[in-house]
């Protein structure tokens, strides 16, 4: 029992000073990103001001995939080593990942309507991102469907690991198949096909989302650890 709690306590100790730092970084990146994205950056040669939606859409998609990779890694540790901290980190990251996936889909639709002429199409990219949202939803549902968190995490971890298959599909969909969605602008070994004046707000927003994730993860982890302590206290009565 002792070693199960030792590491979470260590985690709490090192993250206590990090929490305000991460929150302040979120605000700084967000302010910079919003100012450059909405006001200071030039309109696109083809899309005009509609391009500005990209600054909230593209980073949301990146972070949604990043959180899934994190969730899968934590699920792997939780499944094989039954590590308590990994379990707690995994379940704490799920709602944040679902939030960013949802934001990616909604802002993408709001870009798609004026630019493509439709809110939604069933092309490989859009569908695989929707599957990502269902994976987050499925994880949450499986976890909550067991009365004891130790049991729920087993089933949910397996789902998360199976779902990893979806990550390369999201990434590759725009290159392997004809999709309506455009291929990536930034992740290319040759020069990225996006102008520096537009890349800066994109990266600032990505930074804001990243630190938002870190901040929220730390808070949610605390909540989850409290809830588990509470369960143990109740069981002792």
């Amino acid at each position, binding site marked *: 029992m002792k070693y199960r709690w030792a590491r979470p306590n260590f985690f709490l100790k090192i993250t206590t000073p990090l929490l305000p730092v991460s929150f302040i970084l979120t605000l700084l990146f967000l302010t910079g990103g919003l100012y450059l994205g909405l006001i200071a950056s030039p309109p696109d040669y083809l899309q005009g001001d509609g391009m500005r939606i990209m600054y909230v859409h593209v980073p949301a998609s990146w972070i949604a995939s990043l959180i899934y990779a994190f969730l899968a890694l934590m699920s792997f540790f939780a499944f094989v080593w039954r590590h308590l901290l990994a379990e707690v980190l995994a379940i704490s990251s799920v709602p944040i990942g679902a939030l960013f996936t949802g934001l990616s889909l909604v802002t993408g639709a709001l870009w798609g309507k004026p630019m493509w002429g439709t809110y939604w199409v069933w092309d490989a990219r859009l569908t695989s991102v929707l599957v990502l949202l269902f994976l987050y939803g499925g994880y949450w549902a499986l976890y909550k469907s067991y009365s004891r968190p130790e049991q729920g995490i087993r089933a949910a971890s397996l789902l998360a690991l199976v779902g990893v298959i979806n990550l390369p599909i999201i990434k590759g969909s725009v290159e392997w198949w004809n999709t309506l969605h455009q291929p990536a602008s930034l992740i290319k070994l040759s020069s990225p096909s996006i102008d520096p004046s537009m890349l800066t707000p994109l990266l600032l927003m990505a930074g804001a989302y990243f630190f938002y994730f870190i901040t929220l993860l730390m808070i949610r982890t605390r*909540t989850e650890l409290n809830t588990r302590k509470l369960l143990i206290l109740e069981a002792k009565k």
Partner: protein
Amino acid sequence: MSISTPYLTYILGAYGVTLFSLCLFLGWTIFQWKKSIHQLNNSSHET
């Protein structure tokens, strides 16, 4: 950005939804956190 852009509703919609959701989610998360601390304190006082 010029206010007369034809995409104004879509842009404000996208930024609005994003910022609103981020704030709402942060608020909800902090609320749950405070609640869990409160419950834990109550429970340990009882025992």
